């Protein structure tokens, strides 16, 4: 795959997704926090202004002479300082008092409020800048028993509030930004850590490829164990079949060497033409046998990990009816005692080789009757249920002293007696590869040979 087509790496995907989520989350948090802070800062401002108002009113009264007495000390020194940003005005009827800070300034203090009424506005634009204005309606009891109505206004410039919220926002941004960066960093590190085993597998696989390691040797997390075990199984199967090819090739080459040597000897030193021809024919037949054997061995697979079990009945039927045709001149017939449910857990080709070779052998020797029996052997305490395939014929049978020779136990392929049924040794090879057993004996029912295969 070229770099252009390669999809985004897992780490990049995870980081991108996390960045988006994080940005959204932190942004929203920042916004909400900022709103809340502004609100509480405004509330604090209002309460402060209210506090000033009460303090101011506590020092204010109407004298016996009917004159307004104002507090000597202002609740906040800024009220005495012109243009300080904190202003006050008390007004009612003819009376109009402005704090020294607000003298001769245009302030938005026009509202008239009934006694007990409050108002809070802001920011209000004025010539003194944006102000937060608190209004309060007050009634004073006059000596005559009547009431005088006043409105007290207090205003503060928004600058202080602004500065406060700006400072808060700056801090917030800094904090959230740092947090975001930190989180992303942690995420990236944890991703690297999470993906570490995958990189390990890739590295180990490269080692295997380079031939420096026999298999994926590391211990991998549970989630990857399935994958690495499959990979290891695959590597082993590959290696085994490679080994098998090598062995087969070696066997083939070695076993052809002997007849070749004999041929060379004949050609170089045999003076008699007839003997030369006869010798050559013999060696050719031998080479033919060797090639046929190795070819048949190549046909069998020996792999049976993942195949679906196949029903034996129909396949046996095919083989037997084919052979009945081939041996029609004998009039030989194959009797069936086949369990309908019997299934072979392996390759179809292997089953065909087993049945074909055994039945062909039986037909060849029989005088007219061949019996095929397929059944399950019930499980015993020591062994689980096993499949049994028995082929019997009514031919001459195998003499007792040759039983071992027929199977040629423990004899290497290229050392087997020539012309003695390549078929049987193939059956033996296949049965062995399925961890089964092949036994030869005498048929009690038909009197001829009896071949019995038991498969797990």
């Amino acid at each position, binding site marked *: 795959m070229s770099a252009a087509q390669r999809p985004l790496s897992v780490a990049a995907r995870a980081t991108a997704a996390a960045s988006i989520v994080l940005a959204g989350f932190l942004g929203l948090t920042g916004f909400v926090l900022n709103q809340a802070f502004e609100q509480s800062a405004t509330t604090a401002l209002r309460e402060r202004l209210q506090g000033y108002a009460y303090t101011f009113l506590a020092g204010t009264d109407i004298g016996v002479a009917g004159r307004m007495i104002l507090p000597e000390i202002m609740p906040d020194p800024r009220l005495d300082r012109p243009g300080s940003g904190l202003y006050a005005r008390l007004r009612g009827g003819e009376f109009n008092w402005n704090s020294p800070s607000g003298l001769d300034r245009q302030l938005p203090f026009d509202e008239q409020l009934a006694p007990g009424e409050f108002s809070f506005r802001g920011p209000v634009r004025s010539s003194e800048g944006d102000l937060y204005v608190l209004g309060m309606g007050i009634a004073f009891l006059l000596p005559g028993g009547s009431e005088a109505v006043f409105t007290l206004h207090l205003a503060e410039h928004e600058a202080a509030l602004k500065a406060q919220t700006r400072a808060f926002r700056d801090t917030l941004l800094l904090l959230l930004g740092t947090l975001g960066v930190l989180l992303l960093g942690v995420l990236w590190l944890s991703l690297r850590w999470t993906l570490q085993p995958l990189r390990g597998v890739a590295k180990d696989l490269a080692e295997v490829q380079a031939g420096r390691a026999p298999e994926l040797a590391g211990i991998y997390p549970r989630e990857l164990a399935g994958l690495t075990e499959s990979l290891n199984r695959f590597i082993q199967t590959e290696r085994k079949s490679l080994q098998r090819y090598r062995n087969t090739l070696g066997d083939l080459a070695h076993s052809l060497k002997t007849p070749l040597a004999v041929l060379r000897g004949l050609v170089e030193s045999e003076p008699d033409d007839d003997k030369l021809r006869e010798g050559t024919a013999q060696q050719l037949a031998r080479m033919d046998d060797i090639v046929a054997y190795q070819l048949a061995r190549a046909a069998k697979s020996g792999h049976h990990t993942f195949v679906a079990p196949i029903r034996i009945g129909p396949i046996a039927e095919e*083989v037997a*009816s084919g052979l009945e045709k081939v041996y*029609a001149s004998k009039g030989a017939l194959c009797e069936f005692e086949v369990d309908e449910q019997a299934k072979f857990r392996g390759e179809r080709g292997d089953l065909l080789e087993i049945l074909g070779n055994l039945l062909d052998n039986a037909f060849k020797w029989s005088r007219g009757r061949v019996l095929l029996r397929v059944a399950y052997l019930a499980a015993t305490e020591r062994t689980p249920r096993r499949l049994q395939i028995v082929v019997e014929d009514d031919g001459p049978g195998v003499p007792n002293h040759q039983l071992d020779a027929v199977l040629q136990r423990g004899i290497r392929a290229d050392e087997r007696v020539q012309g003695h049924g390549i078929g049987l040794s193939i059956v033996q090879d296949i049965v062995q590869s399925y961890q089964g057993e092949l036994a030869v004996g005498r048929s009690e029912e038909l009197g001829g040979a009896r071949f019995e295969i038991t498969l797990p």
Partner: protein
Amino acid sequence: MRVLLVEDEAPLRETLAARLQREGFAVDTAVDGAEGLYMAREVPFDVAIVDLGLPKLSGIDLVRGLREAGRRYPVLILTARGSWQDKVEGLKSGADDYLVKPFHIEELLARMNALVRRSAGWSKPVLECGPLKLDTTAQQVLVNDDVVELTSYEYKVLEYLVLHAGELVSKTDLTEHIYEQDFDRDSNVIEVFVGRLRKKLDPNGDLKPIETVRGRGYRFALPRTV
């Protein structure tokens, strides 16, 4: 006996054809499956030898095709891969026997003879009709245990008649089964052969082994001894 040989490998095809001709077969050859199937349908062969691995049309499809076309003569398949999968597949498609390459030509001849005999209803390699014995393996004819010397064409005619003993065999049947495709056919030759056969088999004229069915053909009249 007329035989169809379908084999794509030239050296094998030519050696086999030459040997079969020496053995007295009329041999027609085809080099691929399509040509083989065409000939198999058109010509009344006595036996066909078909390689399984053929270009254009596989041997299996060829055999299936000729069986579907109603041709009943025996078919022997040749396979290079001796696996049972191939053999069973071939026999299922309609073949009667198989041989795994490489094989001895003698083995092939024996199998072919057996197939032809079987399809004509004979079970033993020596065909017996009363005092006449025809040994298909040795290609020898005996009457009352005396050897009768025959030429190769005389033998072919007699073999075909004896194989189908009791059946009517037309002159066309005889020419078609004795000569190859491109042979210049002259039915008078058959009459000459039959005349000579009568003289050689029955010099005294008391056996009358070959009947002439006027205008239709011949019938081998001696009853089969099975």
